[in-house]
């Protein structure tokens, strides 16, 4: 009961203030009246009675104040008044408010955008049950000291069926992007993930619709054509209709039934990529061709990533050791055991299993983006610091103008803390507005960031979704920043002495020391950012300038997968298709091969060169199968010999073409023409008929690679494994308009064929350089913003300094200084701090060079040319910034200044 009463009192104190005030006044007035009545009854006159009553009562205002104090709402009322006052002040000076709020919004928003990325790439855990128990299984060996993560299906089954392991279960998955989904009349490419039957169950993922895979779905090879859609795909492609359940979808011309849709927000263990469909591993051979023996029972075919769920409180080392017996068993059961070389035996003996925590899924996305994101994070933090310093300068200038107001308040009894509280309230109000607009900036900047960095937006899991963490971070940063830039001006203002007139005369050099130090800081930070921008731009140019070894202009590459063609018909089919394409108007040249160019694809199968023993641990050359006129279509020059022609059929003598690096490595100075080679472990019955110039095959930054080519028709019994090939088309005009023509031409040959990834090589290279381009773009942007902020800060300080020291300049000119010398009195001082800033910036740039070294290509972080360019840029900015104030100083009229003071 008492609590209710107390609460009611508190609420009345907050909301019924005017009523309470009236009550108080009436009550005290009544008391006074009674006192006066008493005195009047003793015979005093009315006026005397009133005065006596007042004297008897005591200090009325103090009593009223004490009564108000008992209400304990002081803090709230004061804050409310402070906020109202701060709001009025901000509205009255729109220029200042706009500048401060916008620069704060930019700094805060940029930080929030980077934080959203950091959260998704580095911090977020998988949306599964107990993600901290999920681990990744990997293997290291002498030959591959960096962990290999792919295992064979038999080994996976061994793990799953083995008892007494400290694991609750194992799952496997593998992503496959070249699957055609036939729907209506056209075929479209989809991204598939092959998973084990217990995948969803072990992860604790539920179905949005239908029922998910169970272990029994994965038992029989090819026996259970069921598919689970991902939530994204269901929304995008089927508009989230529940009727999609039990519908039949054709994948590579095989019918599959949709049995479920996985829950929203689950994108799999492959970070950054959200597959469209999931199918059991047992159905993999139906959809995809694997080279060699049947994939599901082939211990040598390692294509599945294995993750496990560890039992609680098991150490990773213990878990890894528990898997060793299975590894050894795998070695023993390997059918190729007898043919093992000594080196291979050594490698196998050195193999070790590793169990690593994988609460965030695979580490691929994180490795790609982590360093870049941290670098960007530092940049935006620096920009925020600059913005705060600028706003602090602005506040200091304003506080100096309000010194009179503070003196009066201090004189009538306000405590310093009260003044500081009010000024901090003003800063916090700025912070709230800056934070609100910063949220908008974060949203748009985040969107720009992601579109700069991610090439496959459809399947990417990176998104800018405003969630609680982002909001909290945004406003926490905004409010911390506002306290940071508001504290110094607040403390300094509350220190206002009660005789401001005295201060004008004493040297103002010391008073501006704080601001000048901040100038140095701003110059140092801007120098670092500009130097980094220069480095990233040079690095990008270096990458763009790499000679890939073939002509990239107007070259399209298209992947096809004619899955329902018999292997013998394939060479014919492709030849016919290429002829069709070559006859299209607008096509200058066309050819086909297996590997896409500069798309991170590589294929090795060892090499047999009679009379040559490769050194231990040598990986062998990369290879490809191609059609006729491949090199002329791609613009790779042939140095010796000839191209493949249509005459190189399956019945003709087997031929091969190698590149210079291959010839050099295996044959030295001898001519490679006429030499015989063959795939590893096979017969060397391919005769070399041509040698080409070296090129970049897999990616632009690779070292020189040995390469050999074989005609597709002469691939032999492996033809069945290589159905999907890539078509290369060089257009004579705009390649993007060729896409539809090509699709139509392929449709004329076979309607059920899906075309994957129709992309120009230029676009592919652009995609490969996405991250570098993003870094260059963003660092230029932030560098310019930093330069602008530093320039504005410098401008403000010098302007203020000139205004403060007008009298002194006037005197100097009066006693004979030339205008330039007068200007130099101000600038000399500031120039010193700018130079200190430049020195500091150089030191900082050099010490942080190790951070960005790995992001650069072809240029060192402490490149002297870049640093000097950045220094020059800063000096130019500084000069521009001080131009106006300096000319103002030079033009000071001594008479006017001395008179009006």
């Amino acid at each position, binding site marked *: *009961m*008492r*609590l209710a*009463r*107390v609460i009611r*009192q508190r609420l009345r104190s907050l909301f019924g203030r005017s009523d309470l005030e009236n*009550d108080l006044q*009436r*009550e*005290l007035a*009544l*008391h006074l009246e*009674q006192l006066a009545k008493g005195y009047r009854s003793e015979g005093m006159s009315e006026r005397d009675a009133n005065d006596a009553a007042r004297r*008897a*009562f*005591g*200090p009325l205002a*103090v*009593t009223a104040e*004490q*009564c108000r*104090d*008992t*209400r*304990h709402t002081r803090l709230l009322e004061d804050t409310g008044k402070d906020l109202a006052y701060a709001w009025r002040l901000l509205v009255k000076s729109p220029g200042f408010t706009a500048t401060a709020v916008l620069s704060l919004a930019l700094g805060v928003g940029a930080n929030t955008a980077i934080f959203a990325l950091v959260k998704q790439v580095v911090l977020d855990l998988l949306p599964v049950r107990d993600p901290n128990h999920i681990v990744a299984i990997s293997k290291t060996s002498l030959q591959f000291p960096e962990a290999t993560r792919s295992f064979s299906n038999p080994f996976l089954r061994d793990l799953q069926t083995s008892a007494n392991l400290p694991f609750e279960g194992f799952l496997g998955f593998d992503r496959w992007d070249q699957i055609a989904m036939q729907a209506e009349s056209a075929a479209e490419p989809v991204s598939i993930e092959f998973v084990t039957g217990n995948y969803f169950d072990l992860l604790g993922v539920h179905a949005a619709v239908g029922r998910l895979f169970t272990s029994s779905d994965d038992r029989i090879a090819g026996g259970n054509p069921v598919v689970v859609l991902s939530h994204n795909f269901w929304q995008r492609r089927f508009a989230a209709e529940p009727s999609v359940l039990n519908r039949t979808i054709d994948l590579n011309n095989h019918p599959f039934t949709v049995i479920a849709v996985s829950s929203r927000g689950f994108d799999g263990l492959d970070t950054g990529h959200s597959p469209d469909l999931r199918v059991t591993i047992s159905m993999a051979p139906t959809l995809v061709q694997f080279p060699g023996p049947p994939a599901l029972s082939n211990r040598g075919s390692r294509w599945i990533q294995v993750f496990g769920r560890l039992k609680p409180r098991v150490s990773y080392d213990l878990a890894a050791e528990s898997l060793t017996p299975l590894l050894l068993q795998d070695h023993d059961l390997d059918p190729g055991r007898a043919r093992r070389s000594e080196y291979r035996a050594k490698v196998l003996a050195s193999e070790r299993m590793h169990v690593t925590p994988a609460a965030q899924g695979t580490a691929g996305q994180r490795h790609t983006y982590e360093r870049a994101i941290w670098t960007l994070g530092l940049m935006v933090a620096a920009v925020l610091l600059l913005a705060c310093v600028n706003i602090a300068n602005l506040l200091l200038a304003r506080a100096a103008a309000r010194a009179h107001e503070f003196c009066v308040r201090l004189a009538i009894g306000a405590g310093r803390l009260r003044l500081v509280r009010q000024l901090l309230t003003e800063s916090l109000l700025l912070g709230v507005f800056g934070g609100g607009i910063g949220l908008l900036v974060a949203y748009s900047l985040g969107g720009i960031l992601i579109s700069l960095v991610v090439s496959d937006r459809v399947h990417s899991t990176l998104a800018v979704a405003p969630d609680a963490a982002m909001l909290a971070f945004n406003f926490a940063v905004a409010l911390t920043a506002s306290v940071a830039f508001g504290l110094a001006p607040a403390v300094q203002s509350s220190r206002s002495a009660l005789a401001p007139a005295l201060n004008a005369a004493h040297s103002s050099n010391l008073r501006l020391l704080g601001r000048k130090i901040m100038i140095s800081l701003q110059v140092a930070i801007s120098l670092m950012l500009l130097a980094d921008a220069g480095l990233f731009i040079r690095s990008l140019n270096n990458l763009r300038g790499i000679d890939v070894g073939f002509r990239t202009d107007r070259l399209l590459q298209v992947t096809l997968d004619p899955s329902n063609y018999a292997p013998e018909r394939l060479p014919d089919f492709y030849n016919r298709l290429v002829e069709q394409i070559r006859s299209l108007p607008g096509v200058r040249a066309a050819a086909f091969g297996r590997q896409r160019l500069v798309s991170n694809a590589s294929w090795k199968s060892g090499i047999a060169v009679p009379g040559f023993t490769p050194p231990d641990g040598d990986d062998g050359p990369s290879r490809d199968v191609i059609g006729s006129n491949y090199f002329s279509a791609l613009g790779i020059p042939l140095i010796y010999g000839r191209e493949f022609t249509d005459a190189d059929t399956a019945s003709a003598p087997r031929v091969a073409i190698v590149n210079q690096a291959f010839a050099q490595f295996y044959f030295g100075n001898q001519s490679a023409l006429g030499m015989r080679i063959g795939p590893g472990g096979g017969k060397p019955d391919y005769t070399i008929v041509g040698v080409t110039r070296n090129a970049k095959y897999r990616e632009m930054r690779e070292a020189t690679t040995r390469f050999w080519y074989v005609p597709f028709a002469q691939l032999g019994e492996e033809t069945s494994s290589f159905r999907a090939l890539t078509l290369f088309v060089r257009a004579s005009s705009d390649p993007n308009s060729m896409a539809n023509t090509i699709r139509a031409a392929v449709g004329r040959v076979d309607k059920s064929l899906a075309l994957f990834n129709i992309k120009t090589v230029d676009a592919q290279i652009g995609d490969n350089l996405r991250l570098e381009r993003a870094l260059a773009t963003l660092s230029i942007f932030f560098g310019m913003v930093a330069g602008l902020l530093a320039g504005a800060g410098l401008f403000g300080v010098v302007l203020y300094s000139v205004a403060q020291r007008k009298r002194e300049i006037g005197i100097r000119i009066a006693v004979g200084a030339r205008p330039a010398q007068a200007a130099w009195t101000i600038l000399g001082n500031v120039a010193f701090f700018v130079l200190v800033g430049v020195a500091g910036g150089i030191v900082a740039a050099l010490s942080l060079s190790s951070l960005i070294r790995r992001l650069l290509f072809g240029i060192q972080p402490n490149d002297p040319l870049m640093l000097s360019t950045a220094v020059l840029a800063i000096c130019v900015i500084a000069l521009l910034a001080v131009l106006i104030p300096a000319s103002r100083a030079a033009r000071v009229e001594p008479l006017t200044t001395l008179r009006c003071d």
Partner: protein
Amino acid sequence: MSDGSGPKTCGLTIVDYRGSIVDYRGITLLAKSSDLIQGTLDLLILKTLAREPMHGWGIAKRIQQLSDDVLSVGQGSLYPALYRLEQQGWISAGWRDSDLGRSAKFYCLTREGRKQLEAELNSWKRLSAAVALVIQKA
């Protein structure tokens, strides 16, 4: 009063190191010596209101009368005390027509206020007994 002797000696009250006054059982009677005045005023107000609801002027007059003009409560302490007691929920207030010719703010004791009055009376009795004891024996 700073005897400094142990708790059970002759049932004397002890002033501990903070200057607060406790009895031999260790129950704190007064936290600070300045609280003496505030606590007494609260007691007087509560006791006055125990008889009948009254306005501020009436309370001051009544205390003065009953103490034979010895205790004259200053307005500067009466009204803050009334407001404090109201905030704490011991008394409640309402505007009513009064005998003064205009409406006045009447205070009356709440149920919790009556219990608080009992507690304060008990503390006061113990305190005054202890003081009397010391004066007798000193």
